[in-house]
């Protein structure tokens, strides 16, 4: 019952909060930018040629897949920002407000506080991202770029949702470890920047070293998942485009890494730490 009460309050208060407007703007901005950018590429294909110059075969003609590929690149930052801003507040924010000991004194499990907040955020955040994605897809049709195959659309939507879930999970862990939400946000942002740098490094490092580092690269795993779901038709720019021959084994490994290690494990770790932590008021 406590879990339900927390979820209802969190959903209501998030939607009615001023910062929800900021989240909406942050999430809508890449959609608008990408529609504009896709239209530019549609009008002037030389932009596309320059953009894909690093590909083995640079693209000369605009298509919906390449538009979504560029969308993934520009949307990950706002997704990370919204996930970090909101999730950093989960526990550190309650502590800063002086609410944490009050909540803990109630007959509820500590994990219910984390899961209630996490679930309510996902209930708002994931449909919002899905809606944004659908708006963008619809815009491509209206511009005249057309629509990608369903498996490619599902692949890109999965990628967006995975990015959101992973970033949120990591921010929750930092929130449990920090005394203030600002500290949690900063910690998560530094971690994510280092992680993104690692992603870029793997492109330029020798293959053997890159293969080792790719095991902990979010973009690498996401690219494999996307490649497999789309039947080898889609990829993300940061990893140099569509992965070659994404097989079922690689897919299962990368999917497990994203879901189990990068999404569920930070949450379980957060709960484990929070359940054992001494909590003092402020």
């Amino acid at each position, binding site marked *: 019952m406590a879990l339900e009460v927390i979820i209802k309050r969190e959903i209501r208060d998030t939607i009615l909060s001023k910062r929800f407007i900021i989240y909406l703007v942050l999430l809508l901005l890449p959609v608008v930018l990408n529609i504009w950018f896709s239209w530019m590429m549609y009008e002037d294909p030389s932009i596309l040629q320059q953009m894909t110059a690093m590909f083995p075969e640079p693209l000369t003609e605009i298509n919906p897949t390449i538009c979504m590929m560029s969308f993934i690149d520009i949307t990950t930052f706002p997704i990370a920002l919204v996930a970090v801003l909101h999730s950093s507040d989960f526990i550190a924010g309650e502590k800063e407000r*002086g609410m944490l*000991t009050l909540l803990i*004194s109630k007959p*509820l499990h500590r994990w219910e506080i984390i899961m209630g907040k996490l679930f309510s955020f996902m209930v708002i955040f994931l449909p919002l991202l899905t809606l944004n994605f659908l708006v963008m897809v619809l815009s491509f049709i209206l511009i005249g770029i057309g629509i990608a195959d369903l498996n490619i659309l599902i692949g890109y939507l999965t990628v967006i949702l995975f990015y959101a879930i992973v970033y949120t999970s990591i921010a929750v862990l930092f929130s449990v470890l920090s005394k203030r939400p600002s500290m949690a946000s900063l910690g998560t942002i530094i971690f994510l920047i280092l992680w993104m740098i690692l992603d870029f490094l793997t492109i330029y490092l020798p293959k053997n070293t890159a293969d080792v580092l790719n095991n902990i690269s979010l973009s690498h795993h996401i690219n494999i998942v996307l490649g497999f779901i789309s039947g080898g038709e889609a990829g993300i720019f940061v990893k140099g485009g569509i992965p070659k021959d994404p097989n079922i084994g690689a897919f299962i490994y990368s999917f497990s890494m994203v879901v189990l290690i990068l999404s569920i494990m930070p949450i379980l770790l957060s709960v484990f730490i929070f359940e054992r932590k001494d909590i003092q008021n402020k």
Partner: protein
Amino acid sequence: MSKMEYAIITNNLTKKFNDFIAVDKLNLKVKRGEICGIVGPNGAGKTTLIEMLICALKPTSGSAKILGKDIQKNPLKAREKIGYLPEDSGFYKSMSGFRFLQYMAELGGIEKSEAKKKASTFLKKVGLSERGHSKIETYSAGMKQRLAIAQAFVADPEVVFLDEPTSDLDPLAREKVLEMISDYARKGNTILITTHILPITEKISDIVVIIEKGKIKAEVILEEISESLEELYKNTIKGDWN
């Protein structure tokens, strides 16, 4: 007297923060329906004691039971019937006082419709009926403190922990709150209250426990002592100033 007649029992309860001993082998027994005042200088361990009893802090050693439920073995059951007012309580400032109380009641296990009734009742009891639907961020410090006190009682707890409940209250509000606390105890509920203000403790408590450096220095039934609490306190507490 059977053990269940005690609402709070601590047995060698100890809390250490690294080398600092905040609560040192504390043995306390508070009967049901009693108001127990805990007094002591700053840093005596009053708040740490309460934070252990509400299961926010894990004891380093020793044990405690609330209404017969062990706070370590059965923390969820131990918290089922407690209310808590922290010193310097927090709020969701964009919520109204009414919604805050309703939320706290629901988290305490009260059904939504009943929680709404309780929220209205307690807003009235602390004199906030007229401002009940205003956002908490518009409340004065005294109003916030009254709201915080109301939330400690709103879920019908049988044991209430109040950490400095009268801070920020004007004399009239203080009188009303003390009256509310006494009335609540008269219904058979147990109150454990910490305060620096000795006349308040003297006025409403049945028993007073004086602690210093985490240890009980004196435990008295107020009806049975001949001297004033202030005299007793001065004679008991050595402190760094003496």
